[in-house]
């Protein structure tokens, strides 16, 4: 049972972390829009949820501490306290303390600071004009504990019209074992307004068959409140997964509350089996009216039924790995079925292929998450850094709903943090400098995300002073990275910024300048098989774009062959396949250009690029591919067909081979390299450029690929 309680605490921590992210975001938005009552309500509800649930799951100090902040925002809601920078900053500092209290006891977690908490509370009380009450800080403001502190501000009622909500609540089999207590939840619910409760024992089995640790009681309630549905749901937020809960609007909003119980009072009716006690007139009437409107059927509100399930990420990873194994085995089955002239086996194989494909898509979708939470957490970083650096900076976000694999998102936090810190410290100018340059005193850092084929593009841009290319080159010469007088392209100069220890900063600050951060960005992006692109305009700003794979697990691919070697191209990048005959080549005078319905598309002959020896076939295939640089053609010998591609990492030895993003095992047991069209195009263009300048670049890499293609890619892990 202790383990169950621990599990529930873990679940509380996970959900509280999400609530804290939302709270932080709401506070920072409130800082910009101080008259926004909805944002005030959002902050209040988040604090209320953390307080109430914290107390319920044994985080009593956390609950007591949060209660004081909740009271302050209650004052704000009621117009008795104005939102100011001091309150926002105090609440943000308090939020850090709440985070620390939440993680206390966890390995490596920062310890919360009681003296800092006391200082914050003293300042909050000073702002609210409330005298210090030891009980408020020392005792938990547990919902249902009936303390004065707990009821003081924990109403969760917005100053809107009253309405009635019909609530059905039935704890599940594990509810009590998880440490939750339905009575405390009902008490907290009652703090939202007038609550009419009807408990039912209908599901309680005979004594001998009764599981003593399971709650069989269920409740039908009518809550009269001005609170919104979200505030009601928040009461159950930590137990939603282990109970049956529906919240339905029972009546339209009304400004009169004559017929509803006063706040904090509950009218109670008991039900034994199917019998209804007579004291629950209001409850019975409301429930009866509601059922009548739907011809005896309950009206379920769709959003309330959109339930979700919290699953540990490790279990999901294991599930996706198993799907990957299944995809590989299915490819073998398809191969065997194709070799045999057996209609029945072929039919079963096709059916399994269809199901596997569907399973793969579904499993991958489960792991796809919007990048919003990752982006939102940087609002705080920008706010704090702007204050510390004496700069005015606003963070704008675009494409926060863009989804990518959780494993990719998990590794994005650090690189983005370093890029933003770098922009704040080196890119964005102080307000007086900006004004002198004719710019707005407030700078903008823009975070963006969008899909591009099988990749996602994450952008960090600022409207600061831009990168001083000359300073970069000078520093590179000083450090011996390039020869004096070397003619670097802009791209090559910017690439130097990501060298270990490279910095043009004249002084090291707390924020950046040690030349470590950008190296971390490059390493992390490399480990994700992504790429970094930097563009900068002097005086106008800098944009860093990270191109990352949407997923690191399974993709739809197109299997092609060159000689005896097989390769996979991500299907998402491929526009079409066209034939390339010797006559076509002659018509183009030997130039690597194809005429695709009037559009001239440059192509790259992969056989030559990878040093794969002839003979080449009479008719080749051009795969026309969409890249960030435009349309490119990749010439291969044959197109073998679609394949579900389970991405296997190449060993570290092959990590420098940029044009290959991984390997996959084919149905016949051989290995195919997965090509990265974007990098392939860049590599080809660079090779042509270097040839023109008489520099052999990338030859070793291409030779490596050639050897790899011929010599079996046994490196796949």
């Amino acid at each position, binding site marked *: *049972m202790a383990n169950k309680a621990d599990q529930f605490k873990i679940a509380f921590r996970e959900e509280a972390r999400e609530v804290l992210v939302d709270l932080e975001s709401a506070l920072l938005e409130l800082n910009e829009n101080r008259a926004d009552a909805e944002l005030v309500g959002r902050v209040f509800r988040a604090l209320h949820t953390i307080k109430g649930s914290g107390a319920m799951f044994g985080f009593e100090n956390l609950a007591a501490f949060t209660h004081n902040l909740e009271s302050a925002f209650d004052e704000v809601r009621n117009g008795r306290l104005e939102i100011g920078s001091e309150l926002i900053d105090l609440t943000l500092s308090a939020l850090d303390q709440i985070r620390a209290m939440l993680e206390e006891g966890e390995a490596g977690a920062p310890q919360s600071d009681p003296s800092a908490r006391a200082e914050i509370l003293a300042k909050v009380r000073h702002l609210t004009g409330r005298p210090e009450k030891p009980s408020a800080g020392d005792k938990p403001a547990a919902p*249902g504990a*009936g303390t004065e502190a707990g009821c003081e501000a924990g109403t969760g009622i917005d100053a809107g019209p009253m309405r009635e909500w019909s609530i059905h609540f039935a*704890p599940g089999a594990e509810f*009590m*074992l998880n440490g939750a*207590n*339905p*009575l405390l939840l*009902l*008490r907290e619910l*009652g703090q939202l307004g007038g*609550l009419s*409760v*009807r*408990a039912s*024992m209908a599901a*309680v*089995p*005979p*004594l*001998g068959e*009764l599981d*003593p*640790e*399971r*709650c*069989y*009681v269920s*409740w039908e309630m009518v809550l009269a409140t001005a609170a919104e549905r979200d505030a009601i749901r928040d009461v159950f937020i930590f137990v939603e997964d282990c109970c049956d809960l529906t919240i339905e609007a029972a009546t339209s909003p009304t400004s009169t509350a004559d017929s509803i119980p006063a706040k904090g009072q*509950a009218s*109670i*009716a*008991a039900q*034994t089996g199917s019998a209804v*006690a007579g*004291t629950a007139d209001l409850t019975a009437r409301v429930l009866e009216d509601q059922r009548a409107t739907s011809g005896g059927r309950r009206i379920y509100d769709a959003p309330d039924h959109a339930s979700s399930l919290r699953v540990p990420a490790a279990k999901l990873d294991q599930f996706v790995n198993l799907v990957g194994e299944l995809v590989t085995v299915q490819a073998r089955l398809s191969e065997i079925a194709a070799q045999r002239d057996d209609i029945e086996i072929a039919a079963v194989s096709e059916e399994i292929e269809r199901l596997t494909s569907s399973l793969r898509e579904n499993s991958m979708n489960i792991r796809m998450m919007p990048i919003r939470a990752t982006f939102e957490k940087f609002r705080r970083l920008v706010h704090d850094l702007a204050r510390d650096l004496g700069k005015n900076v606003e963070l704008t976000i675009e494409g926060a709903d863009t989804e990518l694999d959780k494993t990719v998102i998990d590794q994005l936090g650090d690189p983005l943090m370093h890029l933003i810190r770098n922009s704040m410290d080196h890119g964005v100018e102080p307000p007086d400098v900006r004004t002198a340059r004719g710019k707005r005193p407030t700078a903008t850092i823009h975070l963006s995300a969008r899909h591009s084929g099988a990749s996602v593009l994450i952008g960090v841009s600022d409207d600061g002073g831009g990168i001083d290319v000359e300073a970069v080159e000078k520093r590179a010469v000083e450090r011996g990275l390039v020869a004096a007088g070397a003619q670097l392209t802009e791209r090559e100069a910017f690439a130097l910024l990501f060298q270990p220890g490279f910095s043009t900063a004249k002084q090291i600050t707390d924020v950046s300048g040690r030349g470590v951060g950008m190296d971390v960005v490059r390493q992390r992006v490399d480990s994700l098989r992504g790429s970094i692109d930097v563009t900068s305009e002097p005086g106008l700003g800098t944009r860093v774009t990270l191109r990352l794979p949407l997923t690191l697990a399974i993709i739809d691919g197109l299997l092609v062959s060159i000689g005896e070697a097989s390769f996979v191209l991500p299907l998402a990048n491929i526009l079409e396949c066209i034939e390339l005959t010797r006559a076509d080549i002659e018509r183009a005078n030997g130039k690597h250009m194809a005429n695709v319905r009037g559009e001239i598309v440059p192509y790259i002959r992969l056989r030559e690029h990878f040093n794969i020896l002839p003979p080449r076939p009479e008719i080749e295939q051009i795969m026309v591919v969409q890249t960030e640089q435009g349309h490119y053609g990749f010439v291969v010998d044959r197109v073998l067909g679609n394949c579900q591609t389970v991405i296997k990492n190449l060993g570290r030895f092959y990590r420098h081979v940029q044009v290959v993003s991984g390997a996959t095992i084919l149905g016949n047991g051989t290995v195919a390299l997965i090509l990265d069209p974007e990098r392939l195009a860049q590599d080809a263009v660079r090779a042509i450029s270097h040839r023109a300048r008489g520099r052999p670049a990338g030859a070793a890499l291409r030779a490596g690929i050639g050897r790899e293609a011929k010599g079996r890619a046994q490196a796949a892990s």
Partner: protein
Amino acid sequence: MGITLKQSRKLAVIRLEGAIDIAAAAEFKNLLLQACGSGKDVRVALDGATDLDATAVQLIWAARRSAEGAGVAFTIFGAVQDSVSSALGYAGLHQFLFPLDAC
């Protein structure tokens, strides 16, 4: 927390002390089964209970049905503490312990 069962020639008396919640539920059920199976009148004393949760209430309710089905008298006695009464009342559970109060 403590649950005791004492039996005399005609009575089986269960006395509850402290918080009677899920941690005590298995033991409480066991003693209720013994009491209801004894063929004697069953009494449950609540005056020492400082907290009763839903598991305790449903056990008492199920035991009452079991006893009544067997033709055995089942009585709850002792003044329940205000905090307990308030919590049960708030959750609509009071009347399952004291059905006569609802009439």
